[in-house]
């Protein structure tokens, strides 16, 4: 947020009266209308606002679904597959918007994260902005996991069983902790009801975090494809330049989203979830939603005891959580001062290797952990951690960045001074 707030040009005296007493309008005007944004942002900068719209879509459809959904182990499945899908007016549409919305939301957020990785948006002074983003990712994962349990299909049930059982790997307190999480001795009605409560709550926590994320963003303003600090003359007001660009991007995104909702609504729903939960019948092949697959692969890649003290089961759980927690430290693990990969000839390659690595992990996670799939998962996991813990810290020391431009009006060729990120 800039320190000098501009007063909005009010026509209405009522608005001025309100704003003098509660300056929300001034705040909104400064953050969303005149907010100075870099004039060279490309389409990769659309994904943040798209993700924000998806959060609102999930909350709106979710609040209405709750009016028809019954959070009870005996009734939940029928209230979704029978009542919402068949009887409630437009119930099928609301559910498919919500169910596919989760997939779209994750797709957008993953692209948003890789955008940050490519352009070094996590570097000084945007470390906290990045960290808040990782917190949002964790909250989204918890929310989506608990939402997936609500229809109480057989994959819901077994996903809940396998994931909550991860905590039993913790030494000493593991077993009582899992009983506490379940509210019983297996995943059952008490588990479903608490997941329902939290699935309703967490999106609003995410909303608050998004607010802080934006506050941190506007402190220093957006990064940009060149990754250099821009002066005032290289910035343009958010409205109308980026509002219209975001709306255009949203229309394109709606084509993709609409395709899934109307033409392939069950593409992301496992067939097993059309069978009601059965505590006696484990599906032969438990797979999580696609957006968890890389992490699931890391979980199952650790099939060996580690240094005699960490048993395989605990090792897998630690590796899985570490794969996300390592992102918290990224601003300090990457030692290069140059933000954008455009000026980092070697990092650029490692970025794409990481993208491929995550895709390979996702593919391995979708398959049973044996033979080549297991080898792929193990190599993929090793490389994932190598990237963050070894390659990034060393690369910043040995790579020679290309010369950075000093401003947008000053073309790269003329600028020979290399400007550090700070």
């Amino acid at each position, binding site marked *: 947020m800039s320190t000098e707030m501009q007063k909005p040009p009010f026509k209405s005296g009522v608005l001025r009266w309100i704003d003098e007493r509660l300056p929300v309008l001034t705040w909104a005007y400064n953050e969303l209308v005149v907010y100075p944004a870099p004039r060279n942002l490309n389409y990769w900068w659309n994904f943040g606002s798209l993700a924000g719209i998806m959060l609102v879509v999930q909350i709106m459809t979710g609040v209405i679904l709750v009016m028809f959904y019954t959070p009870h182990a005996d009734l939940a499945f029928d209230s979704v597959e029978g009542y919402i899908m068949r009887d409630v007016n437009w119930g099928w549409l609301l559910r498919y918007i919500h169910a596919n919305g989760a997939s779209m939301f994750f797709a957008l957020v993953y692209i948003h994260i890789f955008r940050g990785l490519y352009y070094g948006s996590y570097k000084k002074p945007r470390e906290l902005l990045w960290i808040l983003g990782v917190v949002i990712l964790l909250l989204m994962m918890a929310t989506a996991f608990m939402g997936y349990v609500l229809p109480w299909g057989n994959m819901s049930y077994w996903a809940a069983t*396998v994931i*909550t*059982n991860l905590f039993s790997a913790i030494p000493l307190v593991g077993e009582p902790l899992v009983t506490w999480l379940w509210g019983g001795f297996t995943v059952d009605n008490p588990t479903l009801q608490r997941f329902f409560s939290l699935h309703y709550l967490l999106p609003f926590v995410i909303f608050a975090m998004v607010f802080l994320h934006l506050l941190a963003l506007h402190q220093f303003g957006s990064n940009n494809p060149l990754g250099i600090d821009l002066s005032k003359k290289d910035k343009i007001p958010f409205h109308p330049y980026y509002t219209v660009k975001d709306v255009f991007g949203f229309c394109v995104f709606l084509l993709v989203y609409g395709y899934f909702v109307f033409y392939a609504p069950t593409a992301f729903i496992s067939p097993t979830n059309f069978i009601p939960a059965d*505590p006696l019948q484990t599906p032969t092949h438990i797979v999580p939603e696609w957006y968890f697959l890389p992490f699931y692969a890391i979980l199952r890649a650790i099939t060996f005891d580690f240094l005699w003290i960490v048993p*395989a*089961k605990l090792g897998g759980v630690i590796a899985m959580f570490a794969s996300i927690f390592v992102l918290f430290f990224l601003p300090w693990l990457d030692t290069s001062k140059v933000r954008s990969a455009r000026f980092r000839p070697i990092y650029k390659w490692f970025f794409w290797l990481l993208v491929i690595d995550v895709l390979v992990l996702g593919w391995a996670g979708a398959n049973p*952990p044996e033979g080549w799939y297991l080898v792929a998962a193990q190599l993929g996991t090793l490389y994932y951690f190598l990237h963050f813990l070894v390659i990034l810290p060393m690369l910043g020391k040995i790579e020679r960045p290309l010369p950075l431009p000093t401003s947008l009006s000053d073309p790269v060729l003329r600028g020979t001074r290399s400007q550090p990120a700070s």
Partner: protein
Amino acid sequence: MADSSVRHDEPAGGRRRDFLELVAWSTFGVGTLAAIWPLIDSLNPSAAVLAVASTEVDLEPIEVGQRITVMWRGKPVFVSRRTEEEIQMAQSVPLEELRDPEPDEARVQNPEWLIVIGICTHLGCVPLGNRAGEPRGQWAGWFCPCHGSHYDTAGRIRKGPAPRNLDLPPYRFVSDTQVLIG
């Protein structure tokens, strides 16, 4: 905390104020913790969940070599009437070959009847092998398809990621043909 700039009375009064402050903060702290505990403990199994404690099983109809599944506290329990050969296999394994070493005698009250909780000790799937025609794994016991754990005819882990043998529920034989689980 007491700030020296506002403490213009003599040391005795100052000490009394420090004492009151300490009492106030510690009461507040302990009180908060005490108030949080019911919130946390409310998530533990309720009286209703704990009440469904025991299950009675009629052993009469189970034939030699047959396995059945019963429910106890919402969990599947495997009841296996073992054949001579299965008992033989379970008893003859050298303990040092086992990941979770337990002799067969420690896992049964009557060698003919093996009663175990049918939940894989890895991540909680129900292993296959209790129904006719399902794979029983390399050691003729049970096989967990989720991540490939093999259990033997005493329900002991032999291969795969599971850390422990299948758990034993508390049970006793009420008569020759009745067993009470729980």
